[in-house]
């Protein structure tokens, strides 16, 4: 590229004989007990768009952060243009021609576009010459790749698509030959995504290499030349995109799991306990995540919400449980509309007879520095059974905790132990015991078996069934397909903030569900704007 900045000159030259722009060999990375990348191999051909697909938590972002020098791999080798390199920090990666567009943009929001472009790549101590050069460079880049941006706009005032173009320009300005895009369409409108794909095609035509990370299969089919599938920290397979189809990819991504045997009779649905009407929810960044959802759950049935993680399930759970106020719509529990006024909506819903097992027990379901018995009353501390007046009846709370420890087989059986010292499965049982072992009408369960060992999974499943048979209305959200299939009496598939299908578990094989979850068989909507290749 004629206009590349000087940083370009430091790139190793003469190694262009390899057909691979990037090769990763035997990469391992752990965070504490979590093995995020297990012995990963990946080869990316120069001048292609290579997709990496997998569910949230599959280890895609970790792998790319290692390539970009943000994390250091525990073991494994990286080759760039056939040369072995050791990437110690982002600056080094940039020098090697690797640029990254992060999932959460690395932009300074109150800076102008131009200031963001030059940050860290300034030519000299004074800004004026750098800004002038960047302005000229942007004009060229805009022409070459349809990357139009307004150089003087303040980033927080422009659209998300615009911000993303700034991120791509940042990388190109630094002379990136390999561009990594981490979930680039997650925050884009369909039209913006379409625009992005045109840009990527032009970049490929100019010989750039693109690594495209996503969990959306349609995008893989639309834009990539080859695709690698990751699952639970492992690289499952790499295929040419032309030789595969969404159904196969969905299966590889979700995995064929042993269907656990859950003994379950027919459901006996009673009257409606939970009604959700036209619910619209925004996330913290102001992006609409739930786009007008309607459903109901009756007493004595389990309604499962299936979907690839990140399609609005978390936001749906938070709104239905009263933790965040929806933008629009109603939640009706046992015929009563819930008020979202104030910041204690979750407390009102509990009083209305709703219990909630949250998706992320460590972040919100537990206070890990508390003793077990204290978490056993979290959210119910105002209950009369824990003391009539202002004071807390600690012996009563501990006795109840001990009883639950026995009933739910929580180990070690010590209600005075710090919660952080229990294993994941036992922590989950603490939460389940607290939420299930009481008078309730509606139970909301998010990812009940995430990070839980097999033995505990069976136990947790049988408890959920028992609750159903006791006439409770249960809403189950899980990304584990087999869990949804074996527990649910009705399955709703969530995709891109909408419930796109209702499926009877009896006719729902994994393949059909996988297609729905990939958004493939969704009825035609505006989000179909993404064109096939």
């Amino acid at each position, binding site marked *: 590229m004629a206009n590349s900045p000087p940083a370009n000159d430091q790139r190793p030259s003469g190694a262009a004989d390899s057909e691979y722009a990037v090769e990763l060999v035997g990469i391992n*990375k752990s*965070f*504490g*007990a*979590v093995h*995020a*990348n297990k012995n990963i191999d990946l080869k990316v051909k120069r001048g292609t768009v290579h997709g990496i697909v997998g569910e*949230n*938590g*599959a*280890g*895609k*972002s*970790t792998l790319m*952060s290692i390539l970009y020098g*943000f*994390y250091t791999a525990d073991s494994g080798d990286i080759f760039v243009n056939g040369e072995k390199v050791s990437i110690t920090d982002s600056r080094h990666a940039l020098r090697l021609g690797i640029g990254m567009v992060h*999932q*959460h943009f690395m932009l300074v929001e109150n800076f102008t576009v131009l200031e963001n472009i030059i940050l860290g790549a300034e030519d000299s101590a004074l800004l004026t010459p750098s800004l002038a050069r960047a302005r000229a460079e942007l004009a060229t880049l805009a022409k070459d790749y349809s990357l139009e941006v307004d150089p003087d706009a303040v980033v927080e005032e422009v659209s998300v698509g615009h911000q993303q173009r700034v991120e791509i320009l940042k990388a190109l300005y630094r002379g990136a030959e390999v561009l990594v895009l981490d979930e680039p369409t997650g925050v884009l409108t369909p039209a913006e995504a379409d625009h992005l794909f045109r840009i990527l095609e032009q970049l490929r035509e100019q010989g750039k290499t693109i690594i495209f990370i996503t969990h959306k299969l349609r995008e893989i089919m639309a834009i990539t030349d080859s695709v690698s599938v990751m699952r639970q*920290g492992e690289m499952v397979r790499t295929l040419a995109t032309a030789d595969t189809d969404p159904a196969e990819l969905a299966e590889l991504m979700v995995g064929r799991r042993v269907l656990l045997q859950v003994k379950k009779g027919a459901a006996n649905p009673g009257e409606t306990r939970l009604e959700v009407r036209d619910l619209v929810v925004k996330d913290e960044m102001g992006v609409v995540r739930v786009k007008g959802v309607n459903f109901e759950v009756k007493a004595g049935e389990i309604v499962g919400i299936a979907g690839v993680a990140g399609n609005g399930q978390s936001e749906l759970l938070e709104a239905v*449980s*009263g*933790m965040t106020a929806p933008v629009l719509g109603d939640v009706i529990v046992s015929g009563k509309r819930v008020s979202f006024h*104030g*910041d*204690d909506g*979750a*407390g*009102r*819903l*509990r009083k209305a007879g709703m219990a909630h097992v949250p998706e*992320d027990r*460590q*972040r*919100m*379901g*537990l*206070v*890990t*520095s*508390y003793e077990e018995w*204290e978490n056993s009353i*979290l*959210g119910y*501390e105002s209950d009369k059974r*824990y*003391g009539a007046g*202002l*004071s*807390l009846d*600690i012996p009563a709370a501990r006795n109840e905790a001990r009883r639950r420890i026995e009933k739910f087989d929580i180990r070690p059986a010590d209600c005075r*132990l710090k919660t952080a*010292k*229990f*294993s*994941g499965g*036992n*922590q989950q049982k603490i939460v389940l015991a607290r939420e299930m072992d009481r008078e309730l009408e509606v139970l909301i369960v998010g990812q009940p078996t*995430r*990070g839980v060992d097999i033995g505990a999974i069976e136990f947790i499943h049988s408890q959920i069934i028992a609750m159903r048979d006791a006439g409770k209305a249960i809403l189950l959200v899980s990304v584990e397909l087999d869990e949804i299939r074996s527990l649910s009496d009705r399955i709703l598939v969530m995709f891109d903030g909408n419930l796109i299908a209702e499926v009877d578990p009896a006719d729902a094989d994994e393949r059909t569900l996988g297609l729905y979850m990939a958004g493939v068989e969704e009825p035609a909507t505006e989000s179909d704007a993404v064109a096939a290749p």
Partner: protein
Amino acid sequence: MSARTELPRWVTLALMPALNVALAFVIGGLVVLAIGESPLEAIQILMFGAFGYGEGWGFTLHFATNFVFTGLAVALAYQAGLFNIGVEGQAYVAGLALVAGLAVDQIHWSVVLITTTLVAMALGAIWAAIPGYLQAKRGSHIVITTIMFNFIAAAFMSYMLTQVFSRPGANSETETLDAIGRLPLLREFMPFFGRSPVNITIFLAIAALIGVYYLIWHTKLGFKIRVLGQNPNAARYAGISAVSIIIITMALSGALAGMVAVNEAVGVQKRLIIGYVGGYGFVGIAVAFMGRSHPVGVLLAALLFGALFQGGQELNFEMPSVSSDLVVIIQALVILFTGAMSEMFRPALERLFIRAKPPPEKAVAPAPPANQPKSSGEQGSGQ
């Protein structure tokens, strides 16, 4: 941050704070040395001044009474994750309770005690609840607002004492309490305390220690306060209203701060004078951090600082070149080491304990530290 070695409880709870405090004293000793005096002699004089005789004890306990109130005020707010730097101002405004005391000082000291206690707590609570409200509802940072409220309190009280409640003939103090209304001093029953000012308010301090302990660990409100302080997400999940907990906690914190007025203004000075708090509110910050925001710790730290204040004056008398403000240096270092650098000795201690016990005691299944990415590194780039 890689997985942390689990240090034994006594190390994190007792040894680390002790080392931090010890370091503060060592540096204080170096200052004495730099002045050209013997640190060992200084500490001897200091300890004797504080505990060597009855009157010293009395002064130590009197100062400690103030520090129990201000230390508890900071500690209680800290349990909810709030840093109340405004204890000084809350105590100052609460001083106006003395004016209420003047109204009833012809009746009996017990009436004065009850009246001033209630008024002082109410005034302190109001002065603290406003920053609490602004934090909870308007998002104004509580540290900055409480600092501002200290200065506003100073100006307000200066106006009150010069323009509104000043005694005829004086410009910056109120009338003095009538003899009938004065709080009993301990020396009236126990000559052991010499001429020291320790008075019956000390029993209120003991009650406050027990009360705060009970509140934090034995009431539903305390449970909620701690949930908010430990994990605000869990509070939202549990349906605990952060807005009301913040306002209530700040009000209670301010009420504790207000008790300084009863001990110092009503109990000792018997009138309200400009700037009567004299920094006791700020000492509360050191006391709370050193005491790890636990009432037992606060009691020990308050006694230590009480001894330092009393011993420091004695030290200045015996060693004129060592100012009693040496105590302020130690106070600063205690805040620095136990508050801002509290983990200073952790790496060294961890190395020490790993070497001492080659296979670290296996916990049931050590959970990852709280601030580590959950599930995997998916969210990693933002960390």
